[in-house]
């Protein structure tokens, strides 16, 4: 077996926001770094790099996951949605509009992770209870807002989605 440091890079293909993207990455490349550095998608933010803060949350085949706790090579061939892929052709998604409307962000660093998490949360619970919202966003840290407006935005997004469906 070869020594770890001599490992050759891997050719991978990720379908990011509906577009097949190829990258040449070492085995140790985190998905978060692959998105940001190799593919230039800097919307995914990197906070703690050990799974606590939730800033780097992206959707893997529609399910929210920590991109800092996922190797890029592990998800070769899979579908990734980042914050850049949430808006539709008609503009911002209902979740994005609700966050803006309810002032659910201040510095904005945690926002990409919240938007991805909440997008998936509302897909699973289209009319969530307060408890489901709290549980759903419990893995995302925001150091500015105090969360009240984020919780409001989740409910508002649910309303917008119901109105528009």
């Amino acid at each position: 077996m070869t020594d770890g440091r001599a490992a050759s890079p891997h050719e991978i293909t990720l379908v990011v926001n509906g577009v097949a993207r190829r990258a040449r990455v070492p085995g140790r490349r985190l998905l978060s770094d692959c998105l940001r550095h190799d593919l230039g998608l800097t919307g995914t933010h990197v906070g703690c790099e050990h799974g606590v803060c939730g800033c780097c949350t992206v959707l893997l085949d529609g399910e929210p996951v920590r991109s800092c706790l996922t190797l890029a090579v592990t998800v070769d061939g899979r579908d990734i949605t980042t914050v850049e892929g949430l808006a539709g052709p008609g503009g911002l998604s209902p979740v994005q509009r609700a966050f803006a409307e309810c002032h659910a962000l201040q510095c904005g660093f945690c926002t990409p992770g919240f938007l991805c998490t909440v997008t998936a949360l509302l897909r699973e619970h289209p009319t969530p209870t307060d408890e489901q919202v709290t549980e759903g966003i419990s893995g995302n840290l925001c150091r500015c807002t105090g969360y009240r407006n984020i919780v409001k935005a989740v409910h508002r997004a649910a309303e917008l989605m119901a109105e528009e469906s």
Partner: protein
Amino acid sequence: MKPPPFVHHAPRDVGETLEILAEAGPRGKVLAGGQSLIPMLNMRLAAPEHVIDINRLTELDTVEAGPGGVTVGALARHARVARAGVHPLLGQALRLVAHPVIRNRGTVVGSLAHADPAAELPAVLAVLGGSVRVARAGAAPRDVPAAEFFTGPMESALRPGELAVSAHFPALPPRTGTAFAEVSRRHGDYALAGVCAVVTLDGDLRVASARLACIGVGPVPLVVDLGADWKSAADAARERAEPDGDVHASAAYRLHLVGVLARKAAERAERTAREAAA
């Protein structure tokens, strides 16, 4: 905060995985959900030369429920096992494992292999008297009972070159209730202390047996067999617990907690057993 370099292996089946593991020996580490291993790599607490990534082994993405219990394959993730709703105590424990997003990736068997003394799932396996199926190249798989599987903090009976392929959680007998009580600094954190309880009633609805498994109060899940004397839960747990103090809580506070939680869990389990029997 980036993993150190390693050779990444992505085997397609269990046989190939075992061959790679055999060759890598102590220089290899299995990657399943990665929700514990990747933080350890990022923080350079682990630096394996070879990472054997089992995420393509769909044959291990299984949850099989039968009359004898539930067998969970090594690639079955927490969220999937919880959704399957196949075991009450497993369900109660999984709600306490980290956050929903982590549960989308982390695996049940991975959590057992990681053997964190404050983790919930090792306690569930221990209190139920379950087992872990361990495979290695060129040998028949062996089933390791929970009592022998957890050997120390973050240490299991898995030897270099071995793969935990599944875990078996025995079914509950009739008229049995379960509960999991824990206290953590923040929701989703590892518990300061926690207790799961299994209480079984006899035909006359008297408590026939009660068992606890306590976490965060020793190097491995502490199993306490209370027999029919379930009301002694708090004292029995405190007598046998050997917690350490750290920045999160003193040893004395953990000892206090484990008693309170033991009583709560036993009471709640007894109540659910009565509901199940009614």
